């Protein structure tokens, strides 16, 4: 034969439909930029076409501006990095006035990540963000590994997360997607608690608390001693949590996050049960990573004969059992 035949299952990449529905809206692709890795978007305009994103999640917003932690705030680890930025942000007012208009005009899905320093300020933040036009989702960050007050219990005790989610859901008409902490012992219990409180979905996972030491200086590499681990190192843990939650709560929309660097990584998360995914750390080395990953995902789905996102989400089969052992 003169030309290699197309793979049996083959589709033209252009025929793959990347649209996905999440929290009542349709996104052009399942790929969003992750919170804290995209700031408020403007910086990326120099490097990439922002309209190629399915959506973006802003840096976490709190009612008042925050200035963040002392330095050093970041360090690299094997296939990952630690950060203790400290949830620095411009605050609700400056966000609505100065940052949101730019994002709204992009025509992609806009998710605003938010948090408070205590119960009341979470609710206040959700309430005050609700007036913002062009916000599709409020992503509630209950992990907050880097702030001292409140953070821990919100993110690790299901009853506390339930109460907090309920109060925020009642404070806004926007869908609330809760971003869960992998530091929780029982991720399914957490997902269930926030789902029952009215969350429109969950984002999985935030960074995992970690540490690195500079043995020459006899000091931690971060001023806060501990920081959040992100990058490919955590991908297996993130995938496992997505899969556990998808199995236990098949109706709950999941946004998968953790170490995504390629179209294949993104497809792993979709197959584990996520309907959207976020890309974080990969954006630092490659500001145009999401456009590349989108192209890779499209080609890979075409190659594998998967015509649409729905046909990928949660399609995992078990490995066929071995023939019985008769001794």
């Amino acid at each position, binding site marked *: 034969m003169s030309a290699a035949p197309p793979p049996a299952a083959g589709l033209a990449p252009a025929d793959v439909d990347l649209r996905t529905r999440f929290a009542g809206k349709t996104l052009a692709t399942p790929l969003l930029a992750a919170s804290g890795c995209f700031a408020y978007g403007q*910086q*990326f305009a120099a*490097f990439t076409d922002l309209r190629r994103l399915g959506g973006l999640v802003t840096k976490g917003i709190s009612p008042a501006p925050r200035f963040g932690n002392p*330095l050093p*705030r*970041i360090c*690299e680890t094997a*296939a990952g990095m630690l*950060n203790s*930025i400290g949830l620095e942000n411009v605050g609700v007012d400056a966000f609505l006035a100065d940052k949101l208009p730019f994002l709204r005009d992009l025509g992609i899905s806009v998710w605003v990540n938010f948090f408070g320093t205590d119960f009341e300020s979470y609710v206040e933040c959700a309430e005050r963000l609700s007036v913002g036009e062009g916000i599709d989702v409020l992503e509630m960050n209950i992990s907050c590994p880097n702030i001292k007050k409140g953070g821990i219990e919100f993110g690790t005790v299901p009853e506390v997360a339930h109460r907090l989610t309920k109060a925020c859901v009642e404070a806004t008409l926007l869908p609330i997607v809760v971003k869960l902490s992998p530091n929780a012992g029982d991720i399914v219990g957490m997902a269930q608690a926030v789902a029952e409180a009215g969350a429109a979905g969950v984002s999985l996972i935030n960074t995992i608390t970690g540490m690195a030491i500079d043995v020459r200086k006899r000091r931690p590499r971060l001023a806060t001693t501990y920081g959040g681990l992100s990058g490919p190192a955590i991908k297996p843990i993130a995938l496992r949590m997505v899969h556990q939650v998808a199995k236990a709560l098949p109706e709950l929309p999941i946004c998968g996050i953790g170490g995504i660097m390629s179209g294949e990584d993104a497809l792993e998360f979709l197959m584990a049960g996520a309907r959207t995914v976020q890309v974080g750390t990969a954006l630092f080395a490659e500001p145009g990573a999401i456009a590349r990953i989108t192209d890779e995902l499209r080609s890979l789905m075409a190659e594998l004969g998967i015509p649409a996102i729905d046909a990928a989400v949660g399609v995992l089969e078990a490995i066929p059992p071995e023939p019985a052992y008769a001794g």
Partner: protein
Amino acid sequence: MSAAHFAATVESRRDLGGGYFILSLHTDAPAPIEDTVPGQFVMVRGDWGRDLLNPRAFSVLEVDGAQRLAILAKIFGRGTARLAAAEPGEPMTVTGPLGRGFAAPRAGCTQLLVAGGVGLPPLLFQARRAAENGRPKAVEMLYGGRGRDDLVLVDQLDAWGTPYALATDDGSVGREGRVTLLLEERIATAKAAGEAIEILACGPTPMLAAVRTIGLAAGVATYLCLEENMACGFGVCLGCAVPVHGPRPYRYCCTDGPVFDAEEVRWP
């Protein structure tokens, strides 16, 4: 921002001894290299797989037209070790030029360029520009290192006619002692002569701290080119905070700097 993210290849690597090397990069992509201001930097990353995730920051040493730029680096950890082994033709990705560089020398005011070790590149670039503009003596380099191996590319200063003085901790070349010794003496001379000067410094943090103290005490305008751990280099990760005085406790090395007014920096 007039920076780009582009593919480049290693054109050559020149080893200077003592772990120092110059990497020349070439790109066919449209990149705003030509407009680079001394003090600006680039983020560079090779094909390093998933182990070394983030690019590394390097001051631009020199640009040549729109397609060539060079950096001068010293082997420090894994990333610089990989770069030090890069062969011609090896693919790299570059983001840049980034940050805000040094102001050009003003007429009637000499810029003292205080360089320590691997802090040389932005200051050598500054000296090169001054020479290219026909004003080699608008700057004066004060260059210090631990020993002979730490003072590289001095021949370029000779070629350009840039005034300079050297210092080494071990006395192997130039004055024995810290480069700040040269600085203190030079400030004293300038004061005595009523000469207008300003200080531009780049090097290890302890050196910069000393330069800052000296500059502030002498009432001389002092600009420090700082290094902080960076993940992105373009204002997104917020990793590269620099503690400052002023309306906010931190500014960012990559977008507000790397060049900061010494008065602004909140150091002990």
